[in-house]
């Protein structure tokens, strides 16, 4: 009866706990934002440098000025965006404020940065005589459009070849039981892990005897062969996720095996096909070592080689132009990523399954 006073229950200080929770949450959020910001800086700065450099004259003073100003505007924009994002819930017209921030950034850029910019570095897009030295390097350097075309041709041809070969191969590996299937899968992994550079000389000699040296098709064949194991392995993982039931169902519905493959199975691995095709395309687009080795005379120069030769100048490299070429080289990749990133992020690496 009288024992309610025996155990002194400490009254809970709810207000203190609430404050502690708040501090914990804000602390964590701050830590995460600071960490991510610091880590992204070294990743993003080169792109900023590239963009600024490509639009300024080779005068270092102006280059630095613009770089600093752009950097400051970027920091400003980032801080503004951060504040807006964190307080969206409390604002009455968040969209309006976002718009205002964008307007401020555009205005600042227009006033402080725009007057110092020039398109001169991009003259290679319409002049073949990029050194402006008369005709001396014209014979060596093809037009950038030819280089772009070569790169595109290489990447597209490689992607087509790889996809046409890897898709049925991956399907067969995923679906059919045959002798040596396990070993084939292990071999694929090994092939992918093998340092392809070690093969350069052998490939060079082989292409010479095949008469494919110094020709784009030769490079395409070599690159495709090197890309195939990876593509097959990834695609097999995608085919593995398509249930057997669905194929059996389509068979009983009256479809042939090839109709089942085309109408039912392929649409379900579309994401995987797009992701693998994107990777293969980018591998071809960025390739430097094999095009450098296997295309001896530079008439069929790809963009990677073009960039290399623009940087190779006895008078010292024109970094503005190198940056501009880099921008042109980068642009198609960015555009491609915008369209395919949603599929690439879905990509998962399925292990070897029996």
């Amino acid at each position, binding site marked *: 009866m009288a024992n309610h006073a025996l155990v002194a229950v400490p009254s809970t200080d709810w207000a203190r706990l609430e404050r502690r929770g708040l501090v914990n949450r804000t602390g964590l959020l701050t830590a995460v934002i600071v960490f991510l910001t610091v880590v992204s800086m070294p990743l993003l700065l080169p792109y900023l440098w590239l963009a600024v450099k490509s639009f300024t004259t080779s005068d270092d003073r102006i280059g630095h000025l613009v770089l600093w100003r752009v950097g400051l505007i970027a920091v400003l924009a980032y801080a503004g965006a951060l504040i807006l994002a964190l307080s969206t819930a409390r604002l009455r017209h968040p969209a309006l404020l976002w718009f205002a921030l964008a307007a401020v950034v555009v205005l600042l850029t227009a006033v402080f940065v725009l007057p110092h910019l020039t398109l001169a570095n991009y003259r290679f897009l319409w002049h073949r005589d990029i050194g402006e030295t008369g005709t001396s390097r014209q014979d060596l350097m093809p037009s950038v459009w030819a280089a772009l075309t070569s790169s595109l041709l290489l990447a597209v041809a490689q992607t087509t070849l790889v996809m046409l070969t890897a898709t049925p191969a991956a399907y067969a590996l995923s679906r059919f039981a045959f002798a040596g299937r396990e070993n084939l899968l292990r071999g694929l992994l090994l092939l992918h892990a093998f340092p392809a550079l070690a093969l350069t000389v052998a490939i060079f000699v082989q292409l010479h005897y095949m008469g494919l040296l110094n020709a784009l098709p030769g490079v395409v064949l070599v690159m495709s062969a090197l890309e195939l194991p990876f593509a097959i392995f990834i695609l097999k993982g995608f085919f593995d996720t398509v*249930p057997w*039931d*669905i194929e*059996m*169902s*389509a*068979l*009983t*519905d*009256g*479809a*042939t095996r090839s*109709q089942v493959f085309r109408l*039912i199975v392929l*649409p*379900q691995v*579309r994401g995987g096909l797009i992701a693998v095709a994107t990777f293969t395309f980018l591998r071809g687009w960025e390739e430097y070592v094999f095009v450098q080795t296997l295309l001896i005379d530079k008439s069929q120069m790809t963009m990677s080689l073009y960039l290399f030769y623009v940087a190779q100048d006895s008078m010292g490299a024109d970094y503005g132009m190198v940056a501009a070429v880099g921008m042109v080289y980068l642009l198609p990749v960015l555009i491609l990523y915008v369209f395919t990133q949603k599929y690439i992020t879905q990509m998962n690496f399925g292990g070897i399954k029996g």
Partner: protein
Amino acid sequence: MARITLENVSKSWGETQVLQPMNLEIAEGEFVALLGPSGCGKSTTLFLLAGLYAPTGGTIAFDGHSVNRIDTRDRNVGIVFQSYALYPNLTVRQNIAFPLRFKSMPRDEAARRVTEAANLVQIGALLDRRPAQLSGGQQQRVALARALVKEPNVLLLDEPLSNLDATLRTAMRAELKSLQKRLGITTLIVTHDQIEATTMADRVICMNAGAIAQIGSPADLYRRPNDLFVAGFIGSPPMNRLTATASDRRAQIGTTTLALSAGHDGDITLGIRPEDIALVAPEAARLVGEVAVIEPMGREVFYTLSTSAGALNVLEHGETARHALGDRVGLTCKPGLPLVFDEQGRRIADLSVDLSPVALVSAGQLEPQS
């Protein structure tokens, strides 16, 4: 619609024989259930009929014509998989229309049949959705419509209800049954759920370890199981088993001796369903047990009794228990029960054990002694 005949059909994967040679006749328009535990070969049988597997031996015939050499796609079977196997890249309408793509059929005729099949399973309003946007029950209906739209020779259902929740399963069971009767399609359903099999099918084929254990009407399997496997598989809660030793016309069960209806020697198993046992006063029965567990289940009370022969389950009608824990009760049942199985587990048809109530000398003996 077709009559289906299986003649010595067997299936092996390499060395493993998953299906013993099997003979089966399914009449036109009949609803047959293949019932058995997982791995007993019932799905294999289904896939053999669909042509997805080729039989190792024997002949499968539709309407008397062997279909062994007919491709899956030409057999015109409708199949509903456990996973429904809808095509995720197609809309419901395209899913249902898929089988018609491979038949030369005018476009408006195909569209009419799709609508008809969709209305039949009441999904007419969902035609433009994708399978991922449907609930499990709706997906099941789409799968059914897709199987029905081609007017199949035979409808094969592979565990179609096992992915549905309990309420929906009961509703779909009734609906499938009435649909099958209305359309008159020869239907084979594969299930491991004895309730599904007995409630829907005209005939149940009970399978065990790749062979047919018994074919019969649900009542046959329930009342006259061929062996202990069928006896144990059908019925919930399962049949009680008591091991006993028979010599001449007596059976020794624990400490109790009971009379046999005919002479028999050797070990026997007695089988009796929990609902066939009547609990009476201990003096009025030949077998006596003690109440060990009481589980009220609403409509019935489920007792576990311990007897000298082992534990026994008893299901008694009534909302509250009539007996208390530790009570001694007598167990009796109707003449003809329990069933008697021999050492190999086969039922001995004309043999029974007498568990009938004791004919008391006078009514006075039943009076409670106070």
